[in-house]
């Protein structure tokens, strides 16, 4: 209590990276334990963050320091219901990814890059300054690149290059978009600032054409990162070639940066333009759901199948966000968390098969449930969560998304529902081919999950079941922020009808009676 928790969350992994790199080469194995140790301590701090978080709208734990004053750049951090669980999921997934799969060589660099990546991801989620956001968004590319290129599969260099260049090119538009809104808002208010709140308050008064163009620039960048369908071609390569731990965090967290960015920096800043653009994005999302599922069905490589499945899942998130209903956006945010858990677990399991069998061609696998019953059981659970079986987390998210979309955009919801069925098709069919049937050759003798792996994946399974059975604690924290966002949309665009139960007052930042560290002081500051 009373400490700058968000700064700790950002700088602790960085400190960990320095410590890990400083370990002498002779004791390089220590890096595994120290690296994971830092990630676990980080998780502890995040638990504290979640516990202290108040179920109110607006940003909490705000920390604001001037950084480069000439441009109005400040080190402005804060967390609200939308970002809270993304931070939590990041902190949960990283130690698992670092501890679970085996790293073949050079653990010092690996742990170092992973910790840098963790710091970058968390900083992106809590940034309240557009400059800080962009910087962190970009910086995650470097460790991401090195994790893929350093420890990936056979075509790792190609995949890493593609990953970096595609996203970097997309960021070009984001960069110019951010600078444009910074400049236009600065001209209007009289002083330049990258502050999210300042910009949000003013940006909606800009000419609608400007708003749309800037939003399009943002969308171009985030669509590459998410990725929406025409911009997705880097994804299967990056996911497939990355090492298991890399796939887990890249699929689980890195692409959430795009989805989160589109919600926080697209919809929040330019609500009117976002409503106008919604049909386009909803269509792309719907195409993505169907396309991803269909292409996943015909994949021969198991990891590629999971990667294309990700393309489909992402469609649901975008669908929910651009439905512009409380349920849809809440569902979208929850889907981000869900997808982190299920995809993380799925890539982990696929990685285990790769470690044991050294092949992921579906035709060469088969009957694994005889030799590895525990793995098969875990896999069923994860698949069911991904399909959206009631009682598991995927159901809650997809249901909210589909309900929310149905209210405003009926036919897109129909397409989404078809996607749910297709997901069942490709996942169950894959399970059938890989785990059932007769086991031949090495498949019959494959080792089951070790206790280390069971321990590592357990938190993900707990999360999957918990969110499915009792999502209320999570939803209670997300909903106020989502209502706040919708209230903002309404305040900007009076034609927009707020769905029932939304608050009508926009809480931009910290409530008046709340100290910047999140404590409710009672006295106005």
């Amino acid at each position, binding site marked *: 209590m009373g400490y700058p928790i968000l700064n700790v969350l950002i700088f602790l992994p960085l400190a960990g990276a320095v410590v890990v790199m400083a370990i002498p080469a002779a004791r390089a194995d220590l890096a595994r334990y120290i690296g994971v140790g830092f990630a676990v301590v980080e998780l502890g701090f995040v638990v504290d963050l979640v516990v202290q978080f108040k179920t109110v709208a607006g940003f909490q734990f705000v920390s604001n320091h001037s*950084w480069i004053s000439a441009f109005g750049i400040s080190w402005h951090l804060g967390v609200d219901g939308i970002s809270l669980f993304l931070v939590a999921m990041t902190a949960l997934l990283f130690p698992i990814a670092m501890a679970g799969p085996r790293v073949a060589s050079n653990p010092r660099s690996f742990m170092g890059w992973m910790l840098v990546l963790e710091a970058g991801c968390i900083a992106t989620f809590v940034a309240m300054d557009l400059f800080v956001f962009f910087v962190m968004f970009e910086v995650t590319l470097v460790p991401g690149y090195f994790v893929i290129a350093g420890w990936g599969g056979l075509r790792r260099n190609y995949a890493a290059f593609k990953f*970096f260049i595609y996203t970097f090119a997309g960021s070009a538009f984001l960069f110019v978009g951010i600078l444009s809104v910074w400049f236009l808002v600065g001209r209007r208010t009289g002083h330049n600032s990258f502050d999210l709140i300042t910009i949000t308050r003013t940006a909606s008064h800009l000419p609608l054409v400007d708003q749309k163009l800037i939003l399009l620039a943002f969308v171009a960048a985030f669509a590459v990162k998410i990725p929406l369908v025409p911009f997705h071609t880097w994804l299967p390569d990056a996911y497939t070639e990355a090492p298991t731990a890399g796939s887990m965090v890249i699929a689980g967290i890195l692409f959430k940066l795009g989805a989160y960015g589109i919600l926080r920096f697209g919809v929040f800043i330019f609500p009117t333009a976002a409503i106008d653009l919604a049909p386009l994005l909803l269509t792309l999302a719907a195409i993505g759901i169907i396309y991803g599922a269909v292409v996943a069905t015909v994949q021969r490589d198991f990891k590629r199948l999971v990667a294309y499945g990700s393309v489909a899942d992402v469609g649901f998130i975008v669908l929910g966000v651009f439905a512009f209903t409380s349920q849809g956006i809440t569902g979208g945010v929850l889907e981000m968390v869900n997808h982190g858990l299920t995809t993380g677990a799925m890539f982990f399991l696929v990685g285990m098969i790769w470690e044991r069998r050294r092949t992921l061609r579906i035709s060469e696998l088969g009957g694994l449930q005889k030799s590895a019953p525990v793995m098969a059981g875990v896999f069923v659970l994860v698949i069911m969560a991904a399909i959206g079986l009631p009682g598991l987390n995927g159901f809650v998210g997809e249901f909210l998304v589909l309900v929310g979309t149905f209210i405003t955009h009926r036919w897109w919801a129909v397409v989404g529902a078809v996607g749910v069925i297709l997901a069942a098709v490709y996942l169950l069919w894959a399970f059938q081919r890989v785990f059932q049937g007769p086991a031949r050759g090495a498949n019959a003798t494959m080792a089951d999950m070790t206790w280390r792996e069971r321990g590592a994946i357990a938190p993900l399974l707990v999360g999957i079941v918990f969110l499915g059975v009792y999502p209320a604690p999570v939803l209670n924290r997300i909903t106020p922020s989502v209502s706040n966002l919708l209230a903002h949309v309404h305040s900007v665009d009076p034609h927009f009808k707020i769905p029932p139960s939304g608050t009508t007052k926009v809480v931009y930042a910290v409530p008046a009676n709340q100290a910047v560290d999140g404590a409710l002081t009672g006295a106005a500051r």
Partner: protein
Amino acid sequence: MVLGLLGGPCTVAPSGATVANFCDTPGSLHIPVAYFSIAPVLILAGGSLVVLTVAAVLPKRSRPGLWAFLTAAIGGAAAVVSAFNWADISTRGPRATIGGQIIYDHFTVLFELLIASATVLGALLSDSYLQREGLDGPEAYVLMLLCGSGGMLMAASGGLVMLFLGLEILSISLYVMSAYHRRRLESGEAGLKYFILGSFSSAIFLYGAALVYGATGSTQFGEIGRFLATNTIANNGILLAGMALLIVGLGFKVAAVPFHFWTPDVYQGAPTPFTGYMAAVAKAAGFAGLLRVLLEALPTQEVNWRPAIWVIAVLTLLVGSVLAIVQSDLKRMLAYSSISQAGYVLIGLQAASKQGTAGALFYLLTYTFIILGSFAVVGLIQGEGEARNDLGAVRGLSKRRPALALTMLLFLLAQAGVPFTSGFLAKFYVIAAAVQRGQYALAVIGMLAAAIAAFFYLRVALLMYVAPGDGSAAETAADTSLVAGLAPAAGTDGSGADGHVAGGAVAGGDEADGGVTGGVAAGGRRVATLEAPPATKVTIPFTVGITLAVCAAFTIFAGVSSPVLDFARHANMLF
């Protein structure tokens, strides 16, 4: 007439009070010299004489380290004095001195500091290189000091005549420096090429200066600006032609496309530390001249020159970054990279605003340290006689020298514009300036060029982190297909000196490693070897180590904090 050509501020006192004390008797031919205001130039020029004198007096020529030490001390002294100059200007204001020929303002001092620092670092780098190559002697350092003084004069120039004087001092020193490596054929070729093309560009510049003088009646920037502000020239063809020629002449020095053809050959051939010095100083001085000419003398012609600079900037960005991709030689690659970096400075210049100028200055300031650091690393790993300049020389560097690889990685990421390096803030600054002038298209092009450029910076980074023997066929095949996909857009290498032809003509079953560079073998004359160099340990001499540390520290410092940024922001011009 002579007086008129030199500007003759004694009869026409420009802008009243700022030059009050310098002309006691109106009409007098006596021009008082404010020595303090040009002290850094004098120190460098005088220092070169000192070095020569010491060399003549001392009995034995070979004294390892002495010349570098002397030069660094002289450069350091110049830097210290320019810091005093800065403080002096802060308190007493900028002014024109020495008959208006020298402009004494923060802009000048920033370049003096930049060039003085580059001289110190360049001298430190040259020491071990020249000893290794058996070329040690005072001459190189004398040239370096003279070159620096020429660059400073260009930045300080108050008129076209002084600008040309500085340009020639700078250029002639650089011609000789490029050809300094006597036993390398490429070095001689570079010197000759640079000399011939450089002479042309000097002539073009001079012709432009003459035309501008003819159109406006003065060679002084301030006078030209005032004349054009108060008079409308009915037929401005001569002025426009003069302006175009001035841009061409200076564009040659900063290696802007399409005046860049000398750059790859000269960068490749010149001795490595001199290349770094040239990249830093000649570019900075050339841009100082461009900024002075366009923003001080011709601000009223903005509507005419901004489109021209726009086109040049776009060409420079795209040609620089695309052609860099197909290079197999490290120094050539850095040459194209420096071309594309010039494009960003041009974006700042094109904005023609205070923001843009400050951005351009910040860019040049940060780039100086990045490029000197990069060439320092290249100088270390190339081995004796510049044996290995190809990309393969960096292969497995992280195994042999982890710290060196990390430093190089920093410089590469900074050039690519990754956040938390000075390169990112520099790009941010100029792009912001472009956006503020409503140049969204240019801003997007600039950032997309950065994405293209990231490709070849990353390729070097990747090679450094690939184990020396790790050339598995599958991995390089992947590289091949990627490069083959990108290379057809690249066209052919402009100079064609090595017969490098880019294209999709990558023979699939080519040597495994050759694939990485994307079919350089098409010319049939030279296949790039990307084999790792023999596993000898790279030794880092003390002087180079210091240079690298300084450059790396500056690159990070300027990337995460604002003092350097504020410094550039305050370096506005007098007029």
